[in-house]
């Protein structure tokens, strides 16, 4: 079980470099498709951590929004903070009513995730950059190694009998460190002083 995971990470790193995604196409409901670098550059906050708390409520306009508190493990953009509290549109109230936005990812309390969040608008809302693309679920194998599941990406293939991996241009499980390095590189100031 571990071997496929490790192999998957390797494939992921190679494959991501070949990923022919670009900003021209659009996604979900309706969103520009972005790669890791574009997500990082478009976001004001980039961090991973665990969702500690979620509270949905109606704002002054009567629209449901949800306040999340995340315990930050690693902050890539937006400065170091032990916790981050932010509000996303949508959510569900105690009476079962709610606001659903197709394409917007859901965050579950207790879930570990890497998030790319926009700056806060005048209404106090942030959004995951590129909606579902702005959330990568953080998973660990039995040895504690971290991977990121980009749930809208394609899947790494493995033969159920042999465990051999088939090539995949975009793996569903991305090596955490590889992604982290891409984020850092994308956010690093250009040597040309851009």
């Amino acid at each position, binding site marked *: 079980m571990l071997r496929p995971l490790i192999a998957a990470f390797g494939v992921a790193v190679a494959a991501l470099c070949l*990923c022919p995604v670009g900003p021209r*196409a659009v996604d979900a409901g309706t969103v520009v498709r972005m790669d890791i670098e574009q997500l990082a550059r478009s976001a004001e906050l980039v961090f991973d951590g665990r969702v500690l708390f979620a509270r949905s409520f109606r704002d002054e306009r009567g629209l449901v929004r949800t306040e999340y508190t995340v315990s930050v493990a690693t902050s890539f953009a937006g400065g170091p903070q032990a916790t981050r509290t932010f509000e996303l549109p949508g959510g569900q109230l105690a009476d079962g*009513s709610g606001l*659903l936005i197709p394409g917007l990812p859901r965050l579950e309390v207790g879930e570990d995730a890497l998030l790319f969040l*926009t700056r806060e608008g005048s209404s106090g809302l942030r959004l995951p950059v590129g*909606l579902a693309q702005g959330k990568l679920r953080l998973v660990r194998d039995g040895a504690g190694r971290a*991977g990121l599941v980009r749930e809208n990406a394609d*899947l790494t*293939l493995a033969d159920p009998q042999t465990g051999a991996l088939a090539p995949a241009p975009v793996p569903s*499980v991305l090596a955490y460190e590889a992604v982290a390095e891409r984020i850092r590189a994308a956010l690093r100031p250009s040597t040309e002083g851009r």
Partner: protein
Amino acid sequence: MEARLRLALGLTTAAALATVAATHVRLRNPSNEAELFWPNPGAIGIVLSSAGSDNLAPGEHLPALRLAIDAWNRASGSGLTLVENTSPSAQSRTDWGNDNVHLMLFDESNTSGYFPQGSGTVAITPVQYFSNGRIADADVLFNGSGFNFTTSGALGAFDVGDVAAHELGHLLGLDHSGVAGATLYPYVDPTVIEHSSLAEDDEGGARAISATSTPASLSGTVLRQLDSSTVEGAHVVARDANGRTAGATLSGSDGTFTIRGLAGGTYTLYAAPLDAPVSVANLGGGQTIQTNFQPILSAPIAVAAGASASLGTLWVGIDALASLGRNYDEFPLRATAGAQSVFVLHGSGMGNGSTLTSSDPSVSVSPLSWTGTTMVTFTVNVPQNEPLGHVDLELNNGGLSILAGAIEIAPPDPVVTQVAPAQGPIDGGTSVVIQGSAFRPGASVVIGEQLYTDGAVGGCTVVDANTITLVTSAISTAGTYDVVVIDPSGVEGRAPASFDFSSAPQIDIVFPAAGADTGGTAISISGERFVAPIIVRIDGVVQQDVTLVSDTLLQVVTEPGSAGAPVTLEVEDGNQAIASALFQYTLQADPVLSMVSPSVGATSGGTEVTLSGANFTQNSSVVFGADQVTGLGGTAAASVTWVDAQTLLVMTPAGSAGAKSVAVLDGTTSQATLVGAGFTYQSQGGGGGGGGCGSIAGAPPMDAAARWGAAGWIPVLALLLALSQLRRRQASLSFVRVARR
């Protein structure tokens, strides 16, 4: 195609347990799986914000949005109806969050708060719901602050119609579809503009929400061949006897499924993993999606119209090293009937030894090249007149991967070759003939903000494959617009800048069309859109005595000019827009009519009348009842005898009771003079009042009378008529006598 790795990480579970999903995928309340629904699906109000996009001309967004609405309203067998509220007050609203309005709105300054800078979001559809799934409100918001929009395929902008059709599917309560050619497929290729064409899967979704009659359904349970365990969240697809994609659903937590919304017929079913290019992340939540298996085609199963049939078990095999389609591939793969198309798809497990085929045997697929194991380039040949619809693609390398509805069989693009006339007034009313090819029944035409749909009231008429006719409607902004013919399938033909809605003045008639070169001729210019400031020129000379009577009438007393050939008369408005007509100066003095005697006669005609004035010629003719502004119409005198330049003897024609104009026309020069209400017809039964006289003491010169048209004569004639009433008894004898002569 999903494998142990995925299982090792845990199933991709978006939410709690799923129940049986309906065709195709419905939006759900994430907490209790309740499908979201409209309480009144047959009359869902929708309002198109009048503000539109700041990238588009005013109103340009409306036809695109209406086409998208119309596509959903036309979904076969569906009871869903979006009803547009076109009241200006509703269209001016922006409070999309209010439950009592369902808006399609371009948010140009992120007032919604849903489009912070960098969000990458082009459009969204917030859906507010109650616990039981009842939809309280849904609105479509376009991110006008972050993106550009187009209705003409402009590069770097998103097509309003495509985005709207997709988002309206969400508004109606549908989630994303795994059928690659569906409107609710989550990825849109901006290079393929198909506007609002719905796939059978989309229509099935609409029928699942609300059907006009009970459609057929197929049910069963998805089990693994390996161990007979159930498969949850499998993408179950029905393929009809022609190999066309007919419907789809997701299996529930116990592996059971029901595909609803089908027509009666024979189907082959299969369950495919929903992992690429559409995956669980494209769904709104509520489904558990298992993907570690490969499809096996079932035996054909028949179902009668409106009936239900059970397949029993739908088997799936062990996971395969074959995967077809990625989310960066550009869907739908549009293959034109009667043509060959070349496409590229990505995936895995490809290469020599693999086969790529279509589910419809008449649609041939031939791989041209395999690039490694991850890309294939292939041709698709579609016979002429092949029915439209969607076809699955199958990749087989020993294992099987099926991409549902990957190929969309589309008709040839309409071609617009000529639009005649190419110009018309902004207020509409112009009969237009559009010529071209590949026009099909049900086509629509878009010119500016107006949508003309075949057969609709105020729409267009598809005469044949080469001709469409319509009468233009008024639009709000003058300008030159594309003429776009849109096939019911969504493909379009466009003739750029082919019709000009003009706000320029328009001259219909100049009366009289000629006048003396000495000037002083009173002429009426009738037309449209005469708005101050107005300049009138004749042969380049600015006319000084111009009266703007109304937006359809100008009165001018001419300046002197040069006799000769007709010269240009121009009316220019404040925008320097110019309308032109012809006017001719002559050496001959204008006719002058100063007296009509008697001015009253029988409706049967035959009254001998003496016209007195000046400049009459032997070419003079007389007309009773001509239009006082245009000189058109009326009835010529029964006879005209030229006595001298000051006198004409005229026999009146028959006429209807009432006051009529009298016009003296010169048939050679087109000079004329006209007196409004110069002669009054009285019915004999009413006791005629002959003997009246149109001579007026102190009357203005006749050319001036003509200048003022009827207005100067009405008080005079009213006086005469009053006198006539007082003397009716005596006069009637005289009248009868005169009439009998």
